[in-house]
């Protein structure tokens, strides 16, 4: 039997629990992801998807369990710029007076000096990232003037500029146009080939089937986890969504 080498896992979360002032948001959750894997995180609102992300990025402390990122602690993953978080569009203040360029440059902050002065390499990384999401014509556009899809691409560019090996995406497909959706799915294939690990939360069942190798169904804890083809069954989905039949979620079969 093959012994477990923790270095092989990009993300290794073991029995993690998170509570906010005594209210349990997530308990006994496990997740193991390798390089190049794309995993969908599926659950109802309040099922603990955002909490799971927060635990992995170190934004909240876990009360129990263990998280290893590339075999090391969350703290050192933060220092190494290992994880990038791409927020939901609703999660950011779109009226903040800041341009596309400045947002993407924020991806480089963690590896800059204390004054955050961009070096030549930072400028290049930002330029390349913006080009990859096709926003070169919008370098100095304030984010308030972008469409939902363009804004989503801006934050993806920030993650690319950060050169993170793990991407956490909160609802990457919600409120985006067809063009952005196509671009994001192309980027996913590129990321996979680059060996990046992706964990994305979504409400859209079709996207899970389309992009995710693995799926993690949660409702405060893990309901089911494994290969999408095996785990993403109507029964499991029904359990995850508290007894609502998948017919209702997918729409009637046609």
């Amino acid at each position, binding site marked *: 039997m093959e012994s477990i080498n923790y270095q092989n896992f990009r993300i290794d979360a073991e029995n993690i629990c998170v509570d906010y002032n005594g209210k349990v948001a997530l308990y006994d959750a496990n997740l193991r992801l390798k390089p190049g894997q794309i995993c969908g995180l599926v659950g109802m609102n309040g099922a603990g998807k955002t909490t799971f992300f927060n635990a992995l990025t170190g934004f909240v402390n876990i009360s129990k369990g263990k998280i290893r990122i590339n075999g090391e602690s969350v703290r050192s993953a933060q220092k190494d710029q290992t*994880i990038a*978080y791409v927020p939901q569009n609703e999660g*950011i203040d779109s009226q*903040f007076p800041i341009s596309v360029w400045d947002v993407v440059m*924020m991806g480089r902050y963690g590896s800059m000096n204390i004054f*955050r002065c961009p070096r030549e390499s930072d400028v290049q990384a930002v330029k390349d990232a913006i080009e990859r999401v096709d926003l070169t014509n919008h370098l100095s556009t304030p984010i308030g003037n972008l469409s939902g899809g363009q804004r989503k691409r801006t934050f993806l560019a*920030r993650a690319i500029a950060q050169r993170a090996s793990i991407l956490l995406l909160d609802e990457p497909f919600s409120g985006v146009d067809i063009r952005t959706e196509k671009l994001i799915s192309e980027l996913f294939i590129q990321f996979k080939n680059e060996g990046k690990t992706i964990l994305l939360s979504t409400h859209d069942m079709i996207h899970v089937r389309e992009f995710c190798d693995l799926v993690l169904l949660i409702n405060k804890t893990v309901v089911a986890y494994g290969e999408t083809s095996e785990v993403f069954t109507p029964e499991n989905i029904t359990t995850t969504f508290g007894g609502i039949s998948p017919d209702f979620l997918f729409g009637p079969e046609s």
Partner: protein
Amino acid sequence: MELCSFLTFDSFITDPLTHDFMRKALLMSSLVAAVCGFLSSYLTLKGWALMGDAVSHSVMPGVVVAYALGLPFSLGAFIFGVGSVALIGFIKQKSRVKEDTVIGLVFTGFFALGIVLVSKIKSNIDLHSILFGSPLGISLSDVKQTIFISLLVVILLSIFRKDLMLYCFDPRHAKTVGINVFFLHYLLLTCLSLAAVVGLQSVGIILVVAMLITPGATAYLLTDKFDNMTVISVLSAIISSLIGIYVSFWFDLETGGSIVLAQTFIFLFAFLFAPRYGIFKLKKLFVGYK
């Protein structure tokens, strides 16, 4: 005729400068305006206007206690400023009362404590000058302390300018890339308390609140770039101070009130005529607006 009106305008500017107290008032108010204006853009974006209000009121008992114990005002003010915020956080976490209610509750309590202490401790602290300031009667030691603290705050804010912007914009990303969010949170609070102290000594609590809120709001209407917002905020605060002091000198008006009114008028102007976000969108009149 033209020469005559030029002379009048000239003396309008220079006459007050012949008075020592006016020179001091102009210097002090501009300094406080610069500090508060700088902070104001962060508070506006972070949604901390009410927090600015709370901290500037909560420092009051600290000042009185420091006075009674013979300690520097700034120390007492700082302890109570940060203490009030800690208390707000604690009550919010441990009860079901909503945050804005907790803020209002805590700062009025602290403020009332300050007023009661002033009345009990026999001192030469003048309640009116704490509330409304006395920019025209600042002592030399106050001048030194104001300059020192103002410089400290401006230096701190300048060094951590970009980190604080990121903290206001997306604290989660800041944390993810290993930036110390806890430190930035308390840095901003510390600067807020220090600004309240310098403001309290020279321009009064009520004026500090205005200075922490209005310039940032004005600047927010005028630009879509963060750096410009800071500059506009600082400039509008300084300009209103100068206008307020001159106007109060020539027309014999309350100085603090005049400064705040000047700020309010600048805000109203931006509100009505800002190129992109104003009600009348001034730009439209000249170049058209898509």
